[in-house]
């Protein structure tokens, strides 16, 4: 009844086998990994890039809630001058939680630092010491003042749900550096997910394999599904090994009945990679292997910095071992423990800032000392800024008008700054950049032309940058 599968034609699998590659071979896995080049382990660009890349891997630090620019990096002396005056919009703008109050000066002292003379407030004493390593986008803007759409925008380039995030696009374009580890890792704040939940790390309409792997850094087994739960003895240890080995044999036998079926091959290859991930991941995620000095530098010895420090250190370990993109989140969604400081800038911003400051500075310097900064990019981002006007009397409301992002590492002109907000820091005044420009710049550094990285869905060749985006060359080396 069957046509014989053993025929005179030579299947793709035969050809590859003759090349001497086993199923574990990265090359083979790549070629067989799926339905199209999009599912390719080397990414849609087939292991190549549009132009020579400066950056191979990225760590994104995301300050969830809308980090206040005028209390951190955007020094605004005019706020002191106009403190208490009603200069804000008369009607409540879309997305403001409350009508604008009076102008409010920052409760924190600012000083200039480094050779670049960058102004930094007292909430970031450690980052103040590394300003000469950083390049700032001082006038980024969002199209919305609402957390959900704004978080989507910074992560996916669209204010609507359903679109792939930056990490997923990079995974789709470039594929993996190291097959033994997830290529796009998300380290959320253990206190909770950010706004939009997991949709911020979604592959959207790209194949599911490009979505972020959520790592619960506090768990003993941080990679989901890496090993069977302990109450299933038959799925652990030697039993697991024996099962997986026999499974591979049986699946290969099954696949031989379908000589050109790439989906079956993809399953076989993925199983092999899974086994390798089981071997590699525990080591990669074990920060206790770091020296005490390193752990202390990241702040693991202080309760206020221990969690974010551990995740920064984890990010470095992953990057070092070939994870392509790591996103580290500071702050869960909600009214507390994050950067959404509506109530009181002094008491709400200071502790969250302290929790990240030392770890961030340590991360940048550690990467530099290890030579990793030569092809690694670190970016500090948030979804929007905050109003120069008080909400209540001590807090600040959402403001997409202007906010700060910084970048450091490969391809970046250290110490540079681009753009400027207006006198009060309310709106971008010069050199306004959107997420499109930020994303275009990131892709550019990775060797990708943002206009040529596309995926066709629902009638459009979609891009991360929609129909916008300019590479911000002013901050490039």
């Amino acid at each position, binding site marked *: 009844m*069957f*046509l014989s599968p053993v025929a005179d034609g030579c299947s793709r699998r035969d050809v590859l086998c003759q090349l001497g590659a086993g199923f574990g071979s990265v090359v083979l896995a790549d070629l067989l990994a799926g339905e199209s080049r999009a599912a390719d382990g080397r990414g849609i*660009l087939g292991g190549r890039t*549009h132009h020579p890349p400066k950056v191979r891997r990225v760590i994104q630090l995301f300050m969830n809630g809308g980090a206040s620019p005028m209390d951190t990096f955007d020094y605004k002396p005019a706020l002191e001058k106009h403190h208490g005056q009603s200069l804000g919009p008369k009607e409540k703008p879309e997305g403001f939680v409350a009508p604008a109050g009076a102008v409010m000066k920052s409760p924190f002292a600012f000083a200039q630092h480094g050779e670049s003379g960058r102004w930094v407030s007292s909430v970031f004493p450690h980052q103040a010491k590394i300003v000469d390593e950083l390049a700032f986008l001082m006038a980024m803007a969002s199209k919305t003042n*609402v957390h959900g*759409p704004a978080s989507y925008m910074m992560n996916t380039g669209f204010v609507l749900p359903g679109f792939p995030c930056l990490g997923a696009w990079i995974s789709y374009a470039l594929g993996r550096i190291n097959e033994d580890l997830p290529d796009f890792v998300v380290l959320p704040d253990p206190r909770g997910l950010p706004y939009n939940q997991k949709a911020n790390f979604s592959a959207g309409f790209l194949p599911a394999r490009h979505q972020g792997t959520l790592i619960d850094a506090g768990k003993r087994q941080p990679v989901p*599904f890496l090993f069977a739960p302990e109450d299933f003895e038959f*799925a652990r240890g030697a039993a697991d090994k024996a099962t997986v080995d026999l499974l591979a044999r049986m699946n290969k036998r099954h696949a031989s009945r379908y000589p050109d079926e790439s989906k079956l091959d993809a399953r076989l*290859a993925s199983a092999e990679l899974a086994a390798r991930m089981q071997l590699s991941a525990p080591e990669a995620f074990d920060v206790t292997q770091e020296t005490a000095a390193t752990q202390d530098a990241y702040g693991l010895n202080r309760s206020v910095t221990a969690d974010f420090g551990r995740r920064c250190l984890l990010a470095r370990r992953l990057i070092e071992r070939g994870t392509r993109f790591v996103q580290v989140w500071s702050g869960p969604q909600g009214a507390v423990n994050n950067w959404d400081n509506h109530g009181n800038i002094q008491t709400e911003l200071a502790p969250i800032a302290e929790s990240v400051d030392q770890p961030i500075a340590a991360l940048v310097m550690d990467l530099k000392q290890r030579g990793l900064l030569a092809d690694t990019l670190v970016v500090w981002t948030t979804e929007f800024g905050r109003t120069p006007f008080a909400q209540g009397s001590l807090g600040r409301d959402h403001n997409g008008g202007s906010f700060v992002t910084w970048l450091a590492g490969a391809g970046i002109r250290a110490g540079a700054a681009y753009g400027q907000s207006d006198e009060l820091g309310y709106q971008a005044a010069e050199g306004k950049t959107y997420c499109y420009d930020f994303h275009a710049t990131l892709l550019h550094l990775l060797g990708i032309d943002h206009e040529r990285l596309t995926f066709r869905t629902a009638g459009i060749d979609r891009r991360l940058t929609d129909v916008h985006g300019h590479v911000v060359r002013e901050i490039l080396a």
Partner: protein
Amino acid sequence: MMENSEQVTRREVMETAAEVGVAVSLKRRPYFSRVAVAMLAGLVALGAEARGAGDEGFFRERVEPILRERCYGCHSHASGTMEGMLALDWKSGWEAGGDRGPAIRPGEPDQSLLIQAVRHTHAELKMPEEQLPESDINILVEWVKQGAHDPRTVKPVERAAAAREWWSLRDLLRPRAPLAGGANPVDAFLNARLTAEQLPIADDCDRVTLIRRLTNDLWGLPPTPDEVAEFVADDRPDAVERLIDRLLASPHYGERWARHWFDVIHFADSHGFEHDVFRPHAWRFRDYVIAALNEDISWSRFIREQLAVDVFWPEATDRVPALGFLGAGTYDHSAAVTAPMSFELLDRDDLVTQVMGAFVSTTAHCARCHAHKFDPISQEDYYSVQAVFAGIGKGNIPFDADRTIGQQRQKWQGLRKAAERRDAAVLLAAEWEVATRESIQNLAGEEIWRVLLAETFLSSSGAVLTRQVDESILASGPPPETDTLAITAISPLPRVTAIRVEVLVDDSLPMRGPGRATNGNLHLSEFELRVFRKGAVDAKPLAIRRATADFNQEAWTIEHAIDGNPKTAWGIHPREGESHVAVFELAEPLEVTPEDRLMVVLKQLHGGSHLLGRVRVSLTDSAEGVFALPADAAKALAVPPDERSNELRLALAAAVLGRRADDELARLPAPDLVYAAGPAAVNERGTVRIDMPREVRILRRGDLAQPGDVVGPGALAIWDDLPARFEGLPEQESVRRAALADWLADARNRLTWRSVANRVWHYHFGQGLSNTPSDFGQMGSPPSHPELLDWLACEIRDGDQGLKHLHRLLCASEAYRRSSSVPTQLIQADPENRLLGRGTVRRLDAEAIRDAVLRVSDALDETMTGPAISHFSQKPGAQLTPILDYSTYLWTEPGSRRRAVYGVVWRGIPDPFLETVDLPELGLPAPVRSFSASPLQALSLLNDRFLLQLSSELATQIREQSADDLRLAMRMLIHRVWLRDGTEDEVAELAALANEHGLEAACRLLFNSNEFLFVD
């Protein structure tokens, strides 16, 4: 592959490009031809140096490109947009001009609107927004100065007319099936093509494979070994057809195909976005879709029910959950509160995307910011569809799952509305004559009331209170801002059912009162009755069932006196200077003794001395007719029946029938709820009641700050015989939805029928005839077999319009039966299997993996309907979104063995296992499920708690049945999971594994085997 030549070309382009490391944005042929034209023009231009601004060459080479590039987008026939009624794509266009008159005065650039606009010197017109380069402006000026010579004298073709030739928009006529191809017309089309292309055709698959394929396809489940044996043994000639019929008759069919529809319309059980709130009543829609598919309702009915069942079948209250379609998508709760303008725009945008993608496979949403770049969809079209939904709110909508209760409710709601509107046609109709007469007879008179003799009375603000001869209490002295009056008394009756509060006029009060405000008004914030049992020092207010008054100030109704909210109150403006009465009915009759004390509390907290001036309280023990008759009805009652004017009769009828309706409605059970959208819905923001559609304007660049013309409801203006502007509708939102449903369900809608036929095909064969099931536009994939698609579209359009007919046709075809285990040259002949010369190996869908494990393990709970099952534990999050933990869920809890379609799909926090096996992200519609194979997926299949738990259970079953004979156990296991006999090798290998590590390990292995996870 002639018909596919374009595709081949595109693929080649892509591959070539990919080889040199370029991700290409696929351009279509017209692009290349435009390039060619431009090149030719360039060649011509080489010889045109000497030409002046007054001749055709200058226009064609210098002027037209500027107009084309910078102006046509908003001012041309081809774009389908002519803003300001101005067309710049032919001479007559600018000669006649738009709203502001001729755009060009030849020879007078400074006086020409066009030039003023491009120079940005005109006060209002600054076009285009991003100013043209100086050099371009100079060219236009020069051209106008020289007389604006324009050779474009032929009216350009309207975009829509040209576009109607596109395959999906062409008239849908039934093609003739090729004669030679086969008995089933599906095969006739397919085989004719295979023959023409000289492609080899695979043999039929075996019977086991076929029943596996069919059962997974139609049920989303594997067959049992018994079902397989029965089918294999069935040698009747129509065995396959019988099997298909049996599968289609099972409710499992609806469970499977409903899930497909949920992908297409991005239905989930939570909002998504920042506040990813659970929708506890969304499941009603899930049950509706399953039922509708099982009933095999016609596709047009399916459309009409989901868009406007409330309009088309108002009596079918049990079908209201169909409207869950409108609430299927995301909801940005945060933006709804803080950024309502952009929220509404984008919320409706999501609905437009969903509706137009799901039913007519168009990407209408691409026209939000500008006319659709590829398809004939104007911004006006797009905003017309938005206007259809400009009157709906999303949230919980009440309905009656029991139609008889629903009809009762509708009847009494109708009567109550008529009473509110004083609709004589209803209230004085013969139907209600008897009821009215009886109700009037039952009305209690003054005799049922016993005046309360106050023992003490006290003003919290120290107002002077004096008892009057009629036992009323009169306030005097300087009026305080606010006050609370407390009266205690012994009940004159042993049983109390209601309390009456009369506010009486008095000459001592401003404007004779009855209130103490300067205009005589009063505001009763809260009414309370407490009973202090003997010796008690405290007592709680008694529950009040209902409050009525003879007159209610607008928005200050008597209900406000019992709503527990001190900020709302009852008022009587503008009927000051008259006495009024309010009656409060107790929820339960009160038994009292002379030892007990009653306390009546009258809170008057509004301020501005809106106080009661003179008040008297009475009690009754009557069960009937205790309510405050409106003043005019009371007046009517005083007139003998045969002397009452029509007006009085109406007033009386409205009072008693309104009361009757209230009583009847109170007796009905609470309505059921579904998360949907409609003229009024309840959500976290409270009741969203819109109904009267909001004004929708075309937005330039999709920007709220650049509103253009107002548009009414409508759809896509493509076909002359299917009007796309819904004119003359009453200003009511629901009729707009109905009009859109009619447009979609119309037999003349060429897209609808092609869309559904292709969608059905897509799920049966793993790819559609068109591979982009929700996009039949120029950017979509053209069908591999356009005639077959049209034939199928006619088949569903012109028959009973049910899907099952299509399922039978497709599943019974030869093409469906072809083997997927084929020699490699057969695959190389058509790698993507677009011509279907063979079968395709497909992995089970995410949900189907869980369901299959359950059925194979004999653990499937076949319960249908009901609230969604949570496969996680839950604790409160920082704000509205909870924290979910899937990893600790034990798969032994009640409901855990039901099919996956009954599980909660939390949009922003989906099940991590299902995610790894390609559950789509439901932030947007997902018309196609992608396939991926990742290391994480391999690990989740191996280590997910569900698969491990069921491995244990299956092992226990097999152990019991095999009496510890391991080889027998392995043979049984293979038979159960792979539905075939195991080979000696397989049995031996598995037995060795089981011997060493337990039967559970073998079960786990089989659940992870590709032979189980894939259907071949």
